[in-house]
């Protein structure tokens, strides 16, 4: 019987361990100088977030969308673009784009009907293009009516796009081509042979287009410099190893940055790829990269085990750590507001 009472005691004691989680609540008032950090969350969890990092006081407001709208942002927020005082958030597995007020993160409207949207590119003529993972097409969106008004057939996984010399250049992760779209007719007009698996591209201070292709197991990754007017590849840099991603540029557009198991920087005037990283990744695997166009500060996210909050490292332009903080699960991109 003594055993029995001992057991009962154990059971009662065990009930004293709290399983109630810690809850942080906050309200969204977004300062004028800060960084939106898009957190993908997990596929099918519906736990995407936007965190806001105030550059001045280094404070983080997590999940500003939920506090402003009292609802969930969606499933797998992929990217975010600031345009005309509004934030366009592409939510991949919800098949939608949410348009937010940049000051309050309040939802103004949303655009539905995409298959698996990835990136948003405003064209300045009242329209925008949206690339897609599975649709084998780019969607044409009318921004005033917030609706899809057309599609541009493009086989494969289309990713980042750039408006350069009046044309739109489209990366495709499932091909060796950089596609060119005529924005007046919304038609695919040409393509340029590049490395396999392009995902990101940047325009430099000289008006040249840089495209980063990640390659695959049999094809090496490449960085190409393209003349957007003549559509000629002017320079090719072949990577010895790795699958580099996230090509970014600084405010003056004279340096390029990318992730390849560490942060690498290359001047647009360089004639060879850097051999050593500017910031070494150590044991972690960097997931997202952003360059503050004003200060040149480098933001890198470490997604840890991918089911917990990411750690964001903020370095100065020389690669010295300034600050680190937590942000939403699988933080993948940075959007600078100034």
């Amino acid at each position: 019987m003594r055993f029995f009472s001992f057991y009962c005691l154990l059971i009662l004691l065990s009930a004293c361990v709290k399983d109630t989680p810690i809850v942080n609540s906050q309200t969204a008032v977004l300062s004028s100088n800060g960084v939106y950090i898009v957190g993908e969350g997990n596929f099918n969890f519906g736990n995407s977030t936007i965190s806001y990092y105030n550059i001045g006081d280094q404070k983080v407001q997590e999940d500003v969308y939920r506090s402003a709208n009292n609802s969930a942002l969606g499933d797998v927020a992929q990217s975010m673009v600031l345009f005309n005082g509004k934030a366009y958030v592409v939510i991949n597995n919800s098949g939608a784009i949410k348009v937010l007020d940049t000051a309050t993160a309040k939802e103004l409207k949303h655009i539905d009907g995409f298959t698996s949207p990835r990136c948003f590119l405003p064209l300045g003529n009242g329209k925008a293009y949206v690339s897609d993972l599975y649709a084998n097409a780019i969607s044409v969106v009318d921004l005033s009516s917030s609706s899809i008004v057309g599609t541009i057939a493009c086989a494969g996984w289309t990713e980042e796009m750039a408006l350069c010399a009046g044309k739109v250049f489209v990366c495709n992760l499932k091909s060796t081509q950089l596609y060119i779209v005529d924005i007046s007719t919304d038609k695919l007009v040409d393509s340029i042979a590049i490395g396999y698996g392009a995902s990101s591209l940047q325009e430099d201070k000289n008006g040249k287009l840089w495209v980063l292709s990640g390659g695959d197991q049999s094809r090496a990754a490449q960085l190409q410099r393209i003349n957007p007017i003549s559509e000629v590849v002017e320079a090719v840099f072949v990577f010895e190893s790795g699958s580099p991603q996230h090509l970014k540029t600084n405010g003056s557009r004279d340096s390029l940055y990318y992730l390849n198991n560490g942060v690498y920087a290359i001047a647009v005037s360089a004639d060879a790829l850097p051999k050593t990283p500017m910031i070494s990744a150590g044991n972690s695997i960097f997931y997202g990269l952003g360059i503050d166009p004003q200060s040149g500060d480098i933001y890198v996210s470490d997604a840890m085990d991918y089911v917990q909050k990411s750690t964001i490292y903020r370095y100065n332009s020389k690669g010295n750590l300034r600050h680190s903080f937590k942000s939403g699960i699988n933080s993948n991109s940075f959007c600078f507001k100034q």
Partner: protein
Amino acid sequence: MQKEKNSSKVKVVVVFAMALLLSIIASAQDTTRIDEVAISANRLQNFSTGSKVQNIDSAALAQYATGNLADVLNAESALFIKSYGMGSMAVSSMRGGSAGQTATLWNGFALNNPMYGQLDFSLVPVGFSDAVSIQYGGTGALWGSGAVGGVIHINHRPSFNKGLTIGAKFNAGSFHNFGEQLFVEISKKKVLSSLKVFNNSAQNNFEFYNSSLSKNPKMRQRNAERKSYGLLSESAFKIGDRQTVNIAFWYQFTDRNIPPTLTQLNSADHQKDVSYRATAEWQYKGKKINYFVRSAFFDEALNYDGMLSHSQVSISEAEAKYTLRRTHFFNAGMNSTSAYGMSDGLMKGYSQNKIAAFASYRYQSENEKWTASVSARQEAVNGKAVPFTYSAGVDVKVKKHLSLKSSFSKVYRVPTLNDLYWMPGGNPDLLPESGFSEDAGLVLSLQNKEKVDFRFESSVFNRNIDNWIIWLPGQSYWSPQNKLKVWSRGIETSSKLQVQRSKLKCGISVMTNYVLSTNMQASTEGDASVGRQLIYVPMYSGHAKLSLEFKGFLLSYTHSYTGYRYTASDNTQYLVPYSIANIYCSKNFTFKGNRFSLFAQVDNLFNQQYQVVLSRPMPLRYYNAGLTILLNTKIN
């Protein structure tokens, strides 16, 4: 690929034809002597000393007869059932383990898929099993890979000399849920053969509140239709006085749509599962020695949005049990399991061949006051030895009403085909997950002239697993790694009181579970999951059941509670607890040996809005009702 497929179908047909032929031969020869055989449970019955075993008999299963195994485990066991929604996939966490760390054995054969390592319990119809036993805690030495958190045994209990029984069951419920089951059994003195067929369809277009949208609007579930049908043929026959042969064949087809999550507008995903499973067993029961030889062939195909995974497993096992002076029991055997998997994700077919030798010894004291057993197992996978596994257990009857038990076991789980060979990312260098599982418990049982029956069982458990496999992202793709060390521990209680007063029988049972399952090792620098509860392992859960029986009437009320479940490994995201109440009532009639039964049930009585899995809505209150007819005639 095509050739593989054809050969598998041929094999299935051959096994099935053999089964039929053997049952015809056996029915031709008839003599005397009857005894009950519970097949394939040799090691469970005789060498599970010290571990907690919960038996759910056919009477208890009857309440869930139109449902699936997930419903039974959810309501009757200490397992946490991770259900993705009505009609959707349901896997388990047992004592804080992963889904692959629960082994499910059908007539002694592991059902866990060789590619995924787990079993979807929503694909196991309750009507296809006579008895379900749940063995808690690690028993790696008895059952091999995957018996880490515990083992679920689904068994056929052939019952001879019952005559001809023809049965039918119909049910209809909310959301256009319709089910039909037909059952024919010929049970003679030495031969038994049964055929069960079911057909099921449901729209599952239930209403729910969408907590991901502002103002929590009420919505209707879409793209959740499910259709399923299958057949189970089981035969058992005796050859002479000492030999028994059991044969089973199980075919099942399920086609279901995968509904959108709370943050998706639409979903067009759908999944088809087709399985063929055939088993055969021969038993010889001598005075001192028993032999068992059994063999199985499983063929499973899963088609998700056109992406195909196809696996085949063949298992052969032979064991012998030797009894000396009713106090010493020896058991030894061999198992050979070869699995073949092929999918779009693997790019080509891979096989995994496991061979194992196992042995057990049990000593039972003359006065039957205590019993102790030791077991050992050595397995090799593709010719490479996995760590030697052993276990020991003891049961002691301290007093008339009180017994104590304790056991420990080394446990392991070998990586699945997907873990090893998925393209890209599969890691052929993965080691098996391995560790130790310990258990101690007490059973208090009091009877008062068959009018009051009280049983209390409580267990404390501890388990440490090293090389726990998780998929982590690499530079360009995800890859599984032996990264985590997981420490699981907890306390379970189960209390049951039954009071009988003339024709009224009243029962109360309460189960409580407290499980801490924490990761002890950082998988990356600064990993905030260290020391935190694993995701989807509730710390607190429990259920209570109240039942009243009177002149063939049964009324039961169950209430279950599931506590917080974290959905982020640093425990910063979570799902809120929920309580679900169900009511079930039935009335049985017997007329000239034929049995009739009517039932009605209400699920989620209090309209609880909840999610078991993040962003997967569950239904509010819903209903189900039906009738069963069992016609029986004696035959000679």
